[in-house]
Structures are given as C-alpha cells and as structure tokens.
C-alpha cells in the first residue's frame, strides 16, 4: 500500500505544477502594471523601476514562477483586490461550506443510486427496471441548475418547506435545513450515473459462479444480493464516484452560485466577474488541488477494494 501511494503521489506532481502554472498565469493578466498603480500616475520612471525591482517584477518569468511556488507553499496567496483581505483567509472561510455541500450531496446520492441500481438489476427487464433507467437517463441529461430552479421554486418558495438562500451555520449548529436543497440539487447529478453503473455491475456479478454457489448453498436471496453481489459490484461504482468528482466539483460551483452558498465555487465566480485576480487564482487553485486529491484517494481506495489491481 505504502509504495503505491508514493508512486501515485509522484504521478500527481506534474499535474500539481500545471495547476500552479495556470494560477500563476492568472496573476500575469492583471490589466495594469502593479508597480505603476503603487507608484501613482505622476511617478518618475526611476521610481517605477525601483518598485518593480522591489516587487521582483523585473526578474525573468521562470524565476518569478519559482518565487510564486515558494509563496504558495508558505500559504501567501496575496490580497483580494475587492475586500483587501488575505486570499488565504477568504479560502479558509469558504472551504468548509463547500466540503459540507459535497459530502451532503454524496450522502444523499450514493445510497439512492445504489438502491435504484440494485433494484433495477434484480428486477431486470420488468417495468420498474425500465422506469429507473428512464429516470437515470433523464437525470444525466438534466442541467444542474434546472433541478435547482425547480427545487427553489416549489419546495423553497411555493411550499415554503426549506430555506433556499445562504447557509445558516454548520450542520451541527442548526444549519441542516439550509443544506438540504443545495445538497439535493448537487446530488441529483450523481444519482443517474451511480444507478446505471450499479445495475450493470450487479447484473455482471449476479451471473458469476460464486453467486450461483451462494444460492446453491441455500443462502437467503437478500444475503446473496447484499453480501455477495453488491459488495463485488462496488468496485466499478467506487471508480465511477471518483470520476464523477469532476462533475461534482463543477456542479458545486453552479449550485453554490444558485443558492448563495458561501463556498469556494461562489467565491471563484464572484472573483472572476469582478476581476479580482488574486482571489480567483486562489479559489481555482484550491478547487484544482481538491480534485487532484479526490482522484488520489479514489485510486488508493480502488486498490483496497480490489487487491488484484496491486499485482498488475
């Protein structure tokens, strides 16, 4: 297990450098020369040059990039142009809500998806199988914001059942009700794909010899399906959930914007719209690094679930 994780980390390294470089580029497009802004409109050329030197702006780009990596490693991401707060502080405030939202979405989507997929596989070819598959195709084709709009309009506004703007606090501090609609919106993206792959995986496993053996032993059908079939079918499902992390992160950006959820995604969108490049750079970096880490965890989990992978 150990060497595998190290090898996997080494593979992620170039990707990490890529992420950092993209974020570094974001800071290079600032429309005005920062030295000019600091020096003021009437400053002499020498003053501007001195400031440029002080800020390190006169050095070659590769050197600046390495210095940038150093600053990022120390947690210095610069200051927001709009709020003048440290970008790292802004990120610290928003990461929690985003993680909460994504976990909430997973917690809703994974059990529902597994249940629907297993049900469809066990009742293969029947009406319920067709209905579940139709729902999952529709779910895959639905824009995230459409589901959000419907939930806001009906559950939130007309029926007045749940709050739909902002976050009232952490889940343990009475914030559960404000989490439900955003989590449901984001989770709905996952239910379709999970149900589909679970159905395929369970069908495949149900035809396997060890399932026939289990049945021949006289085990109860529920034990056969849950302990024998579903457990083995989980391998592709876990991979899929990992692959869907990209979708989930993207969906989180949209969901947060819709529900005014104070997460990293909304921070990124707001920063880009208001040309707050340091904040945009920090938010995009955190999201990209989170994505790299999710993929890493999925790969490791994969080996844990299916020890055969390690040997190859």
């Amino acid at each position, binding site marked *: 297990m150990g060497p595998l994780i190290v090898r996997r980390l080494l*593979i*992620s390294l*170039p*990707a*990490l450098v*890529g*992420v950092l470089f*993209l974020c570094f*580029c*974001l800071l290079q*497009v600032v429309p005005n020369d920062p030295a000019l802004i600091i020096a003021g409109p009437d400053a002499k050329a020498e003053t501007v040059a001195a400031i440029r030197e002080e800020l390190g702006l006169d050095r070659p780009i590769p050197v600046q990039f390495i210095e940038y990596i150093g600053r990022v490693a120390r947690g210095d991401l610069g200051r927001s142009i709009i709020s003048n707060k440290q970008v790292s502080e802004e990120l610290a405030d928003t990461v929690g809500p985003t993680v909460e939202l994504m976990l909430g979405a997973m917690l809703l989507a994974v059990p529902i998806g597994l249940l629907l997929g297993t049900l469809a596989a066990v009742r*293969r070819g029947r009406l319920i199988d067709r209905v579940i598959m139709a729902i999952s*195709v*529709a779910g*895959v*084709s*639905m*824009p*995230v*914001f*459409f589901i959000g*709009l*419907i939930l*806001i*309009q009906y559950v939130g*506004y007309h029926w007045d059942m749940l709050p739909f703007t902002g976050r009232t606090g952490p889940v343990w501090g009475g914030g559960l009700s404000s989490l439900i609609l955003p989590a449901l919106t984001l989770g709905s993206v996952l239910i379709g794909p999970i149900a589909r792959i679970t159905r395929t995986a369970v*069908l495949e496993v149900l035809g396997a010899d060890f399932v026939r053996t289990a049945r021949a032993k006289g085990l109860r059908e529920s034990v056969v399906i849950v302990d024998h079939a579903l457990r083995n079918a989980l391998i592709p499902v876990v991979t899929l959930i990992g692959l869907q*992390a*990209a*979708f989930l*992160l*993207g*969906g989180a*950006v*949209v969901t947060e*914007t*819709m529900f005014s959820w104070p997460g990293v995604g909304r921070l*990124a*969108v707001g*920063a*880009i*719209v208001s040309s707050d*490049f340091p904040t*945009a750079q920090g938010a*995009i970096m955190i*999201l*990209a690094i989170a*994505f*790299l880490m999710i*993929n890493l965890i999925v790969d490791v989990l994969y080996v844990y679930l299916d020890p055969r992978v390690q040997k190859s």
Partner: protein
Amino acid sequence: MSANAAAVTPAATVQGGLSKREGVLARLARDRVALVAAILLTAIVLAAIAAPLLAPYDPYFTDLSIAMQPPSAEHWFGADNTGRDILSRILYGTRNTLLMGLAGVLIGGAVGGTMGILAAFYRPLDPYIMRLVDIMLAFPAILIGLAVAAIVGAGLGAVILALVVSTVPDVARVARGSAIGVMGQEFMEAGRAVGVSNRALIWRYLTLNCISTISVFLTLRFGQVILVGSALGFLGMGAQPPTAELGMMAAQGRDFLFMAPHISTIPSLAIFVIVLAANLLGDAVRDVLDPRLQQ
C-alpha cells in the same frame, strides 16, 4: 508498387467499414428510442439553422408592455423580463448552444485524436503526450472554463476553448487505445514493408481505421459538452447579453423565478431536450457498435 499498395489496403478497409455502417444505420432505425432521438435532434438542428426564417419576432426587440408575459397565442413561450419573445430567443440561443457544443467536440476531437494517433505511431513521443494528457485530466471542465474566462475574458470563445481543452485528453486516450490496436494489424506491417510513407501510413491506414471509434466517443460526449457549456453560460462566463444562449437565458430568468418562472424554465427545458436526445442517440449508437454492452 508502393502507391498501389497504399491504394488497395485502406480502400478495402474503408469499404468494409462502409458496408458495416449501413448495417449500423439499419439497426439504429429499428431501435425506436434511437429513431425518435435522431428525428428530434435533426429537427432541433434544422430549427437552429433556420432560426432567422422561423423566429416569429426579432430576438433582440424589447417591448416593455409585454414584459414577463406568460406563454400566449401570440408569444408561444411568453416574453422575458425586457419583453423579448422567448421562442425567438430560444431558436437563436439553440444556435449558439449547438455551435458551442459542436465546436468543442469537433476541435477537441481533432486535436485529441491527432495526439492519440501520433502517440501510438511514434512510440518515443508516447510518454510525453500521455503525461500532457494526464495533466489536462487534472482540471475539471468547469474549472478550465473559469480559468479561461478569467484570463481571456468571458465570452462564447472562452467557453469553446474550455470545452475543447476538456475534450482533448479523453479523446486522446480513446484514439491512442484504438490506434495501438490498429498498429498491431497485418496491413500496417505490409504497408511498411512495401515502403508506404509515414504520412500515408498515419492518414490512410491508421486514422481511417480509428475514425469510427473516435466518432462514437464524440457522439456520446456531445450531450455532456453541451451541459458543461450551458453551465458556464449560466455562471456568466459564456456569451454576454444581449446575445441569446440557453444557459445564460436560464440565468437571466433567475431573478424573476417567482413572478415569471417561464423565463428560466423554458431555456432549461430546451437544454434538457437537446442533451436527452443526444444522449439517447449516443447510447444507441454505442450499443449497436459494441454488442458486448447490449443486454
């Protein structure tokens, strides 16, 4: 001699491919869901192309006296918050949305396909190309969109660039896998033996034989690309007002959701129908071409 060989081998394969494709079309036509999806998608594409002819009103003409009017006989889909006819805007918006999706899939497919095929043909290049692909895979499409929009400014171009960049790595992987399979075929060896140039080997032997796999993958991908593109439009990273684009139209109606829900619901529904048709067709094409997946 060599020219002769080059002409014979790929032509034979292409012919085989064509007759197979006829069978594919016939089988697709028997699948009722696929047939309906294909007809629907064709109708949508035609309606988008003919938007200037079909649109009952000017999509940019504002008439505040009918602002937020719900669907009626004069305005089938109602009017938006500035009194523009939503049906006309949907027709023009579908144009931009389809254009965005097509550009993303076609350009991304061409770049990714080239990368994958080159990686399979020139083995020394393989690790470099695939490492680049790994790095590109590290960015979810929406993030690429946000970053591109931040760097070059929001607009349809930014979204297309993001969709291309996010399509390239996946296509490169599929193309490489398929091309490696073709590289092992005897006619590649034969072509080399009779001295066919590398260029002809790549174009007429490799690419022609990989193109069907790549196009099936791109068909499957089309719906997803449109979803990501409209999500970026919804976030304000895409086409800017007053241009009509379905995702952006849905976002514009958000502020009037409780007074006039049709303003954002109808464009969202339009995206859903396009993506659903594309996904159903893609699934059917894959099922026909890859019988192993048929249940």
